[in-house]
Each structure stands twice: as structure tokens, then as C-alpha cells.
């Protein structure tokens, strides 16, 4: 299970993407999101794909790893594709079964949707793959700073996000432990039929949720006993430094996004 969970993990490497300022990367991600949403034609999507491929390939992390990061979302992608295929009625009719019709337009839109999703997941993985959690935290706090104006504390939100990310592997570990205990007591996940597998996974829900709450409570107490006060003015051990390459990186994305909006 540990080996398969690659989404959202930092991968140490030396590359220009690793060196970038997290604020630049976060802003670029938002721009990228807008660009992907605005791209309607295969040519536009192809341009974005080429653009992101260049960045992914120079990030010092094997492409396969990005592919694996999208794996948990494959069922969702398949569902999206089916949805378009079955419920879009425009275009040439290729096949019709009962009230469902498969049309050229439907298949095309379905493919676009999957393409977009893949682009988004693979490309946004670059953020967590090339940025350490600490950097990410600092970057988020800086990017969310404007929210202070409307009375939302960026510090609280970044702390929440950081903790949530930090506990993903822990919760998986906990679930794994219960699966092992169940296997020892005669219900081996790998030996079971699909229906029984589903039942077994449902039994994990309660203990894992209870465990998460218990953990959260313990964490709060541990933080408070070490003097953590919400929204207290904090100093930072690390500072972010904005460099020329960061500006350049953002500019690239602004050009890309503007291009997609105009076209």
C-alpha cells in the first residue's frame, strides 16, 4: 500500500523546478487550472500538453511517477468518459442501445474531459513532488495573505492543510494495520471475492475515523502544551526568496493562460 501511494509526496531531486519559489509554483498552478478549463479544442489541449510535458520532463522526476500519481483517479475518469458518451446527443450517431445513443460528439467531449483531468492531476503533482511540506506551507501562507482582508486567517488555513497532508500516510498506515489484523483473523483481503472485499473496507471506516479524531485531539493537546497559540505572530526559520526564474516561470504561465482565454 505504501509503495502505491505516490500522490502528494515530496520526491527529492535537483532540478530547476525544485529550486523555484513555492509562491511562484502555486500561482502557476492556478493559472494552469484556468488555462486547462479554457482550452476547448484539441489543438489548444495539445499545446498545453506539450508545454507541461517539457516542464515535467525537466523536473528531475521520472515521468512514470506522474502517471502513477493519477492512478487513484482513473475510475473517476472512466466514469466521466462514460457520462459524456451516454448522455451527449449531438453529433453523428454511432450506436444506439435502447434510450442511450453513442455519438461522435459525446466520445469527443468524453475524451477531452479525461484529457483535461489527466493534465491537471499529473501537472499539479509537480507541486507536491518538487516542494517540501515546509516550503509549501510558507508558500500557501503567503499566497493566502490577501484573505486577511475579509477576516480569514491564512495561518489557520495553511496549518489545517499542512496537518491534513501530513496525516494522509498515517491514516493509510492505520488502515493497513487493521487489514493485517483482519487477515490474521481469517479475512485476508487478497483472498476475498469482490463483494466481501467491499464489506471488509466498510469495516475500516469506523476505526479509522475514530483513530483520526483521537489523533487530532492528541495533536491539539501536544501543540497547545508546547505553547502554540492560534494567530499569534510567528517568526520563521526559513524565508522564501523570489528570483528572476520565478518571475519568468509565472510569465510563461500568464502567456499560456492568456492565449487560451483569447483563442
Amino acid at each position: 500500500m505504501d509503495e502505491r501511494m505516490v500522490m502528494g509526496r515530496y520526491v527529492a531531486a535537483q532540478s530547476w523546478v525544485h529550486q523555484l519559489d513555492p509562491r511562484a509554483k502555486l500561482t502557476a498552478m492556478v493559472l494552469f487550472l484556468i488555462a486547462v478549463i479554457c482550452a476547448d479544442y484539441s489543438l489548444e489541449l495539445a499545446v498545453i500538453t506539450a508545454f507541461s510535458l517539457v516542464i515535467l520532463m525537466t523536473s528531475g522526476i521520472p515521468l512514470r511517477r506522474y502517471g502513477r500519481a493519477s492512478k487513484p483517479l482513473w475510475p473517476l475518469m472512466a466514469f466521466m468518459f462514460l457520462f459524456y458518451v451516454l448522455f451527449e446527443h449531438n453529433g453523428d450517431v454511432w450506436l444506439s442501445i435502447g434510450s442511450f445513443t453513442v455519438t461522435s460528439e459525446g466520445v469527443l467531449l468524453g475524451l477531452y474531459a479525461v484529457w483535461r483531468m489527466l493534465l491537471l492531476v499529473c501537472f499539479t503533482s509537480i507541486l507536491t513532488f518538487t516542494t517540501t511540506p515546509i516550503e509549501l506551507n510558507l508558500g500557501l501562507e503567503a499566497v493566502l495573505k490577501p484573505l486577511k482582508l475579509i477576516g480569514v486567517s491564512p495561518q489557520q488555513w495553511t496549518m489545517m492543510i499542512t496537518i491534513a497532508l501530513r496525516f494522509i500516510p498515517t491514516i493509510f498506515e492505520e488502515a493497513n494495520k487493521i487489514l493485517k489484523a483482519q487477515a490474521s483473523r481469517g479475512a485476508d483481503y487478497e483472498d476475498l471475492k469482490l463483494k466481501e472485499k467491499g464489506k471488509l473496507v466498510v469495516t475500516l471506516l469506523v476505526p479509522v475515523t475514530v483513530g483520526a479524531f483521537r489523533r487530532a485531539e492528541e495533536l491539539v493537546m501536544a501543540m497547545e502544551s508546547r505553547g502554540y497559540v492560534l494567530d499569534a505572530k510567528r517568526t520563521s526559520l526559513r524565508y522564501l526568496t523570489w528570483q528572476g526564474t520565478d518571475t519568468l516561470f509565472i510569465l510563461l504561465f500568464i502567456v499560456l493562460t492568456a492565449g487560451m482565454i483569447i483563442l
Partner: protein
Amino acid sequence: MAIVTCEQISYQYAKASIHQPLALIDVSLRLEQGKFYAIVGATGSGKSTLLQHLNGIYQPTKGKLQVYDVVFAAGAKVKGLKPLRSRVGLVFQFPEQQLFEETVEKDLMFGPIQFGADEQQARAAAVEALLAVGLDEAFMARSPFELSGGQMRKVAIATVLASNPELIVLDEPTATLDPVSRTELIALLKRLCVEQGRTIVMVTHRLDEVLAAADEFILMQQGAVTYTGTRADLIRSPHLLQAADIVVPNEMKLAHEISERLGIVVDELPSGIEGWADWLIHNSDAASKAVDRYATDSSASQQEQTDKASPRGMTESDEKGE
């Protein structure tokens, strides 16, 4: 009769990675039916990894392992281990994290039902197991998540006992238990071993708690087994314990001190205060002689010291006098 044979098994957690060190290195062992084994080692010595091989949760990366009639050879994943797991009960570390049902009763009945018991048999087994770990039937209806840490641990141990395994494997079951429950649990395991002929394998990093109960001791250090043998052999070689970073139990220290200072060899280590009192009564002659000898020896050596000291004192005063 050997029920478990390990032939030079090694285990590596992440197979793909070259940097991952081996968690087990060339472990060879034979476990016999009906004995109480204690696996002792410092943290990170591979105890838990070895334990989880005994019911096929982990399967060896190298070497060959046989548990009852199931053979695990390196590289071949064995599936369908249900029959084996009904014979080998495994209590994991932090057992309080292994409960998952809504009530204690359901959790206790999960194992027996999986292994083919009907509801009535399962319930009877559940009650029996619960009583065995020292909890009463009132716990059956409660949710495992509202119990205290120690109670959860006992319930978790009971969930494994409920399936009535022939080989009971426990990973640090006594950690975080209070001293009374600790001795009770060990006594229960010893009873299961002696009265019902079950084999017990228990991992601990505290040698003192199993010193009296276990028949065989297995020391582990950095993934390798450094010693297997009986208590008597272990007592004679305390250096092995120190090498494996295991705290030498006070009883062994006492025996060592006695043989060092009084010259009496304590061959069969007495257990507990009563054991030592008995030992003292049995060996009162030798002990009193030894104590006398020790007293004269020490007074003699004190005399010697004053003898040595005085001439120097004289010369000093002589020098002063001059």
C-alpha cells in the same frame, strides 16, 4: 516436534529499493510444539518482522520457512492462508489499534466465524476468551472504542484467543499494561502453554518479565538472531545481552554479584522475592560461610590498607621532623 522451521530467511520491506536494508538477515530457527518462546531484542532488531512471518503476513524475500504444513519459499507468494491462520493466532503490536467492530462481542466473534464456527460456538468462545484475559461479560455489549487503553489491549488479545489457535504469537503484549495485568497475562500464557500444550511465541524488549515463564530465549540484534537457548545458558552469558542492547534483569545482576563477591554460583536462577528467599534458605550454609569469608576478607584488606598507609605516614612525619 518442530512446528516452525526457518532456514536462513531474509526479509526486505521495499523490494524495489537498493538502499532499503534487510529487516531480517539469514534467520534460522526451529520452534517446537508446546514450548514458551521469548524473542528479546532492542527496538528495530527485527522482532516484529520475524513474528509476522509466522502466519504469512510477510513472506520471506530469501530462504525457506515452514509453519505447520505450509511452506513459504522465497519469491513464491502463498495465498489461501486461512487454514494456517486458524492455527496461528497473531496479536500485533499496539493491539488497541486492531479493533474494528461496533461491539466487543462482534470483534471477539469475528475470528471464530471467519474460521467456520457457527454463531453459538463463536459466542461461547468469545465469552471464554474475555474471561481468560480477566474482563467480565459486561464488556461484551460495549463499543471497543470507549474502553481504556489497557482494556482495549486485553480485548485485542482475547480476539485472538477466541479462535483457539495452537500457536499464539504476541508482539509486545505487555507494553503499556499495568504491572498486575502484566503478570496476569504472562501467567495466562504460561497456563495455556503448560495445561493445554499450546506453543507461545512472545516478543518483548523486557527480558525480566519473561525470564521466569519462558522455556527458550531468542535474542535478536539488527535483523539477525544472535542467540537461542534455555534460561540456564542465557544466565551464563550476560555479555550476549549487553551486546544486543538488552537491559540485564535485576535478578541476573543479583546472581552475578553473588557469584562475584561470595563465590557461590547461582545456576538455576530463582524468580521473584519468594524464589530468592527459598534459594537463600536452601543455600544458607554456603551463604553464611561465604558471608563470613567475605567479612574477614574485607576486614583483612582494610587492615592491609591501613598497614600500607601507615609507613608512608611515618616517613612523611619523619620528613617533617627533620
